[in-house]
């Protein structure tokens, strides 16, 4: 009996794994089990119910956390782009560019996945769009079903590893607080933190590396087994360079503006996300109302360019003592341009509303955001109880006692995250497991940025591991009947292996992850 009572923390974790499988929403299972075990622990004298008084403050700090403020805005940017037909246009143009090459269609899927990843970061949207457009094209042209399915599924998951992405924001938050805990535990008084910008910078090169690995694999495979990925038989039409540019340039400008301003340290992720969402709206508006006048949108874009130029040439700060007449005139021009911009944005909103797009956009923004934050709150309640029962000490003892020291502990955590990825997705894994294990790994002396990158690739893998990778799930929903579920599962295996190779590469060559943040943030 005393053995059972002494291992309440362990039983709690086992009970969690069992209960989650029943299928009740994870967040409530997590929080509810936490409360039940708090009561059980109080009854047996192993838990102090007073600890739960911290709950209110914890929830409050989650909802007022300025880092996480960027999440709803990035989600909104993604759901707007999802409905803007940009993915469709990109796919058509890329297929025209690369389709004639052996394996070219699959490569163009990966490249479009990369572009969408850098602008939206929403897995579901990317996979569904590609499954509806690229998959039938590949099958018609005689592609192997497994390769076609694998290419689409893996391309969809790039959204998580290539910044900006919600996953990386949450990961940055979790790593940062784990890093602070580790430093306190080591007795340091002035602690360093990790910013979202640093994690974005750290994930960029490895993300592109994953793109390179996928493309290389597709090309090698289609060279070795030409019948799996033949060149496109049907003509996709003439390549019109002007059209390619007009499709490619707007999203690339958006990517450079959003990502560049964050990595350059100019803007906070929240600010950049709002620019991204407004930009997405401007891209979507002409496509949502093809017959309406383009001038309001064009004028708004011109106004933005004008504002950028003016703020370079003149001192437009309005809150100062003396303003020269020239500056004053420039300020008036800037105000006029701002009015034009505001008008363009209003028109864009109106058109999105008329096209029936605005309602679903705000609804998914709310439900996705509420889901993520409820999970953060539930996990916070769970970890409060888990720590109160002494679970964190047990985890620390367990990890530091692993054979092989640092490497053993790291391997164990990575294996754990990988296996959990079969059943859970990144939100659950990063808020339930990482806060418990990350501080221990960092105390053992690992570099937080390096660790974050390896965990990020590992979490990306969770989207593609059968049976419950989200990406597979979306593909199943949108793929034609002739693609069997087993084709999807077998098709993704090489890409899962490529991800494991990616993790191994970052482990062996840490600079893949740490070089860019070191360069940008010192």
């Amino acid at each position, binding site marked *: 009996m005393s053995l059972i009572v002494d291992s309440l923390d362990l039983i709690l974790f086992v009970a969690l794994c069992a209960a989650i499988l029943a299928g009740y*929403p994870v*967040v409530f299972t997590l929080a509810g089990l936490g409360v039940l075990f708090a009561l059980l622990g109080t009854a047996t004298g192993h838990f102090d119910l007073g600890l739960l008084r911290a709950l209110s403050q914890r929830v409050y700090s989650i909802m007022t956390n300025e880092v996480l403020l960027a999440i709803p805005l990035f989600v909104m940017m993604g759901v707007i782009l999802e409905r803007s037909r940009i993915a469709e246009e990109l796919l058509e143009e890329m297929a025209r560019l690369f389709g004639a090459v052996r394996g070219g269609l699959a490569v163009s899927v990966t490249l479009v996945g990369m572009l969408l990843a850098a602008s939206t970061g929403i897995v579901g949207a990317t996979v569904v769009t590609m499954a509806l457009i690229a998959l039938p094209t590949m099958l018609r042209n005689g592609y192997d079903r497994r390769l076609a399915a694998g290419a689409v599924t893996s391309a969809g998951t790039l959204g998580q590893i290539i910044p900006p992405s919600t996953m990386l924001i949450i990961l940055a938050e979790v790593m940062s607080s784990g890093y602070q805990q580790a430093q306190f535990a080591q007795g340091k008084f002035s602690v360093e933190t990790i910013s979202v910008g640093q994690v974005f910078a750290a994930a960029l090169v490895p993300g592109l590396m994953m793109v390179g690995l996928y493309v290389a694999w597709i090309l090698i495979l289609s060279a070795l087994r030409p019948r799996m990925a033949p060149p496109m038989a049907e003509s996709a039409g003439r390549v019109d360079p002007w059209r390619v540019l007009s499709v490619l340039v707007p999203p690339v400008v958006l990517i450079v503006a959003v990502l560049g301003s964050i990595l350059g340290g100019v803007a906070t992720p929240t600010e950049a996300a709002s620019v991204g969402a407004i930009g997405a709206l401007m891209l979507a508006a002409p496509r949502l109302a093809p017959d309406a006048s383009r001038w309001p949108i064009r004028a708004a874009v011109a106004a933005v360019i004008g504002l950028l130029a003016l703020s370079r040439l003149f001192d437009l700060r309005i809150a100062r003592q003396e303003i020269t007449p020239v500056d004053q005139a420039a300020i008036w021009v800037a105000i006029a341009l701002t009015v034009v911009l505001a008008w363009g944005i209003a028109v864009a909103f109106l058109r999105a509303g008329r096209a029936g797009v605005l309602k679903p956009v705000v609804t998914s923004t*709310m439900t996705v955001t509420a889901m993520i934050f409820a999970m953060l709150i539930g996990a916070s309640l769970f970890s409060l109880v888990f720590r109160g029962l002494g679970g964190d000490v047990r985890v620390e003892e367990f990890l530091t006692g692993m054979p092989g020291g640092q490497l053993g502990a790291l391997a164990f955590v990575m294996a754990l995250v990988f296996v959990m990825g079969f059943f859970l997705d990144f939100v659950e894994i990063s808020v339930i497991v990482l806060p418990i294990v990350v501080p221990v790994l960092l105390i053992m002396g690992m570099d937080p940025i390096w660790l974050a990158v390896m965990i990020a690739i590992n979490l990306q893998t969770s989207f593609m591991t059968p049976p419950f990778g989200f990406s597979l799930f979306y593909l199943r929903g949108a793929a034609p009947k002739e693609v069997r579920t087993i084709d999807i599962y077998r098709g993704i295996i090489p890409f899962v292996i490529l991800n494991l190779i990616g993790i191994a590469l970052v482990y062996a060559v840490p600079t893949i992850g740490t070089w860019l943040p070191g360069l940008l943030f010192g």
Partner: protein
Amino acid sequence: MADLLERWAARLDTVNAAVGLTVRWVAVGMLVIQFASVVLRYVFGTSEIFVQESVLYLHAALLMLGAGYTLAVEGHVRVDIFYGEASPRRKAAVDLIGTLVFLVPACVAILRYSWPSMIRSWQILEGPISVGGIPASFLLKSLIPAFAALLLIQGAALALRSAAVLAAGTTRESGTP
């Protein structure tokens, strides 16, 4: 019996439908204000804490008041390795038990431990988070009990609906020859 339960569930649904379908528009407000603050900061070189905090208030309202509606539209993630294949009765049993054993205790705990700090905050009409901000922290603190209450209401609807499925099954099995 099943009809009665279903009717009550539908009545409870209206609460979160009304709240959710209103609160979702906060997302537009949040985006517009945040973008305006970007223009103010990077073009006109001024930034107001008041504006910054209003984005934070809208953000908090969106995610806390939207949680109940998210439950209503199945937005909270389930692990459906077994659930996905289960019969409607089995799903109803999982939902009924899960709500009573997990959701209710969790929400009651959040309600129980956030209530006192909300009351205290209202008594002193607690001011802004930082100097120059919106002097209404008590509104933010009220969102926590509201979050729990909305989830309890939606949880009740889910439990009633599940009970209806279970009740309908029993009457059909015993009622038909």
